[in-house]
Structure formats: structure tokens, C-alpha cells
């Protein structure tokens, strides 16, 4: 993809006007991504917590959004030891996508993404116990 300086300038302007932290443009096999550090006040407002739901996603000052455990239980990255992990670092995720399982009382509770973004970090090891509110994933919002 060939971008001239004017087009790049336009993209930067768009990033600023729309108050975005990141823009990615894809054309055929080429892609360009522009990023800037989010303004501190904007990141938390990216996800409005649903008060009726357990805090499955909580915001941080910088560096993305944390998906927290809505239950106390055991954290699993795949539906069985033989299956592939639901997600890996770097994967793009969409709302409703299963990220992991938290097992409580022999029930496998699938934890779904509430936002779109990219898995930046997986914070718990497979098979480890988690408490209510423990951070499971760090998501970077695109």
C-alpha cells in the first residue's frame, strides 16, 4: 500500500477528530496502523459496566481493559486438555467470543468478551484458581 504524506496526514487528523487511540487500514496484503497513547479520561469510558452483570470487564487508567473473573473457580484456557486455547496473545476478539472457562461446582462457565480488541496479555495460568474480581486478560481496544 502506497501512502503519500497527505493521506497519512488525513489519517492522523481522523484519529484526532474521532478521538481514537488507534487506526488500522488494510488494503490487499498491506496494512498500516497508527497508534497514540490514550488520554487518561477516555479509556475507562470505553466500556460502560452493566450494573446488572458481574464486573466482567473493568477499565484501567492506561494499557487497556481488564477482563475480570465473574466467579470464584478454576480458570481454563480451553474446553478440554486436548483442545486448542480459546485465545492467544495477539488474537483479535469480538463481543460474544469465548475467552476462557471458569469452572465452579463442576459447571463450566464460558467467559465471553464484552468488547472488541486484541488480547494483550493473559494474566492467569491454565488450571489455576481465581477469585471473584481477579484479572484474567488485558485487552487493548482497537
Amino acid at each position, binding site marked *: 500500500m502506497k501512502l503519500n504524506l497527505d493521506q497519512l496526514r488525513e489519517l492522523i487528523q481522523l484519529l484526532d477528530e474521532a478521538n481514537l487511540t488507534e487506526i488500522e487500514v488494510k488494503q490487499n496484503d498491506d496494512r498500516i496502523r497508527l497508534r497514540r497513547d490514550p488520554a487518561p479520561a477516555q479509556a475507562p469510558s470505553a466500556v460502560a459496566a452493566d450494573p446488572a452483570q*458481574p464486573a466482567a470487564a473493568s477499565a484501567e487508567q492506561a494499557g487497556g481493559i481488564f477482563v475480570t473473573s465473574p466467579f*470464584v473457580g*478454576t480458570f481454563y484456557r480451553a474446553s478440554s486438555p486436548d483442545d486448542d486455547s480459546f485465545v492467544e496473545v495477539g488474537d483479535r476478539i469480538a463481543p460474544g467470543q469465548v475467552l476462557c472457562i471458569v469452572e*465452579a*461446582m463442576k*459447571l463450566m462457565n464460558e467467559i465471553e468478551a464484552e468488547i472488541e480488541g486484541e488480547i494483550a496479555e493473559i494474566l492467569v495460568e491454565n488450571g489455576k*484458581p481465581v*477469585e*471473584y*474480581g481477579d484479572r484474567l486478560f488485558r485487552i487493548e481496544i482497537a
Partner: protein
Amino acid sequence: MFKKVLIANRGEIALRVIRSCHERGVRTVAVHSEIDTEALHTRLADEAICIGPDDPRRSYLNIPAIIAAAEITGADAVHPGYGFLSENPEFAETCAQCGLKFIGPTPEQMRHWGDKVKSRALAKSLGLPILQGTEVATNLEDAVDKAKALGFPVVLKASGGGGGRGMHVIQAEDQLRSVFQAARSEARAAFGNDELYFETLIERPRHVEFQILGDDHGNIHVLGERDCSIQRRHQKIIEEAPSIALSDELRSDMTSTIRRAMKETGYVSAGTLEFLMDEQGNLTFLEMNPRIQVEHPVTELVMGIDLVAEQIRIAEGLPIELPAPNLAPRGHAIECRINAEDPDTFAPSPGKITEFHMAGGTGVRVDSGVYGGWRVPPNYDPLVAKLIVHGPTRAHATAKMRRSLAETIIGGIRTNIPLHRRILAHPAFEEGRISTCFLDEFSP
């Protein structure tokens, strides 16, 4: 022996259980809501697991979360304390299904004693003295007929109630007509059961209750009584052991009646049979609480036993271990419940405790789940400490309690300590002229 016990509770009772476990060499797991992260029980237990948000329905009453916490920590038993899930037979059943020993009676026993109408019938069949009462009233006209037959004044009670909740004193027919439907809706909302029945009103009763312990080996011990007559709106605030209203003869009669009754039902673990005593000294059955009670320390002090340790031993399948075969109360013990509330308006007073100094010295025991610098959350029970004293006589215990209340300083929040000081200083208390109407009659 248990290796690890999870305590499904908070506050002073969670600490009480942690202490008996640690003395037995048993490891402990505390569970807590988000607001209780810094609570004392989470700090003194060997492990602490956050099980949910502040709302108790999603944390301390959340059965799957508590079971999952036991599973991930490898606990082999659960102690429910009092309140929360302690009288919930489904919780006891779920624990059993998940391979966890529930430290308490069986689910069947909880069901038998949980419903007031059923427990009255059971008490009657076991030969315990029960108050004159009626069957469940089917509708308003039936209620009027039943109340008239019993004779006003009567107490309208909810079958699902207990602990002073869901009752109304009814003086006459027109009052009954005006409150019946409301009482029914109230009972349905509060207990999920709208059955109402009547009992004769006892004027100025004393509240006298008997502590029992039973084990898997068929042993039943009746460990004396407590007098919990000083109440505010049916909530106990001062308890003592023994009761000065009981003659040795009545105590011995009641002990054998209760022992026989409890043997017949095969009761296991700690429990309390509550009675009302009329002004002529007759006792009638009120309810049975199949759990440890708030005021258990007064019995522990006069009997020289550890009731929570016995609950644990019993759950492990061991026989009850008492210091002597025929225990008798030694001296007199008094407990004051110190609540975070305004001493005059009784409005709750949560907030940060800036200063916390409890009394000490010989014969003084403090059971508390708070500390200086901690914030009392608004979400739960207002009990911040139990101040318990033990002396050779009631007069000595009263003097010791006055001295202890004078030494106690709790800053930052309001507490009912001033009310306790006024009650302990009142001549009627000193003379033992107490009933559940004490606060209304003497307004100390």
C-alpha cells in the same frame, strides 16, 4: 481430623471459628465480599478468597461461589457460623453432595425446626411445654374465629418467621381485621410463606434458652440456660448465664425433659431451645435454633467449655468431650452486644473506626471482628464486638461489666455503649427484675 475448614461467614463469628480451628491445628479459609477485603477474618485465616460483590446475596449467600472457594482451596469442611446460610438445608445438602462436611445438624433436622408451625407440633409430640396456640388461619374470618377462641390479646405469628421477625401483638378484633392482610403479604415477601397462626400473649415474659450438644454416638448434653430478656424490638442485646429466674428444681426438670426430647430426634451438633417464661415461672417452647448462637460465650464461660471446638469434633465423628460428666454452671457471665448504631435513635452508624480500645483484665472476654482504622461496611449486621464478663456471682459480673464498659473506647462511629451503661446502672437490672419489656418499661 479435618485438615482445612472454610468459614462461610464474616465478622466476629468467623474469627470465633478460626480461633477454635487454629487451636486444634486445623487450617482455615476465609471467604469475603469485595468490601470485606481488609476485614479481620480475611487477615487471620490462613487463606482468603473473594467470592463476590458487597451485596450478601451475591457473596455470603452465594452457595456456588462458597462451594467453588472450598474446591479451589481443598477445604474438607464448612462452618456456617450464624445467620447467612447457617439454617439453610439446601446449603448443607450441597456441601454433602460436593464431598464437604457441613459443621452443623443434618438438613432434615433444619427442616423440622425451621418452620414454626411444624416445630410447635414437633415440640408438643416430644413432650415439651408449648404455648396455647392455633392452627394456621385460612382467611380473615377464620383468623377472627381462631383469635376469639384463643382469647385476646394474642400474638399473630408467621410460620416462616422466627428470631422475633414476623410477629404482631393483637389486642382486639378490629386491630386484627386491619392488620391481617398486610401481615400476610409481609410474611409472603419476607419468608416466602404466608401462613399465619396465633399464640397466647405472655405479658412481660423472660426469654430463657437451653444450650444443647449432640453427637453421632447418641450423646445429648444440656449445658444449662441463658437469660436473654434484655431485648430491643425482639433483638437480644444483653444475655447472661445462668438465669436467676430458674429454681434448681425447674432447671433439673427442664434438663431431663430436653435431653429426652433431643435423644428422641437424634439431634447432632450444637443447638438452642428457646422458651418464654411467664410471671408465674412457667416455661413454654418458642423455637429451636439449629446452629451456634451469638450469645454462646456466656455458656462457655460458666461451663468451662469450647462449644465451637465441640461442633468441629462432632462433625469429625468424635464423641463430645466435656471437662466433667455432670457439668454445672460456675459463677455468672454477662454479655453485651456492642452495635454500630446510635444509642438513642438506633440508626445504623457504619464508617471508619478511628479509635478502638476494648476492656481487659481478669474475667473479661472480647469477641470482635473489627480493628482501629477499619471501615465498618453498611452492608451487613451492625455487631462490632461482644463484651463478655465472668465473675463468681451476678453482682460481681454486673460490677465487672460496668467497669469494662467504662474502659471501652470506640471512636469514629456511634455505638450502643451508652445504652449498655445505662442498663447496667439501672436498679431493676441489678435486682434482676428483667423481661423482654425492660427497655419500654424503664427507658434507661
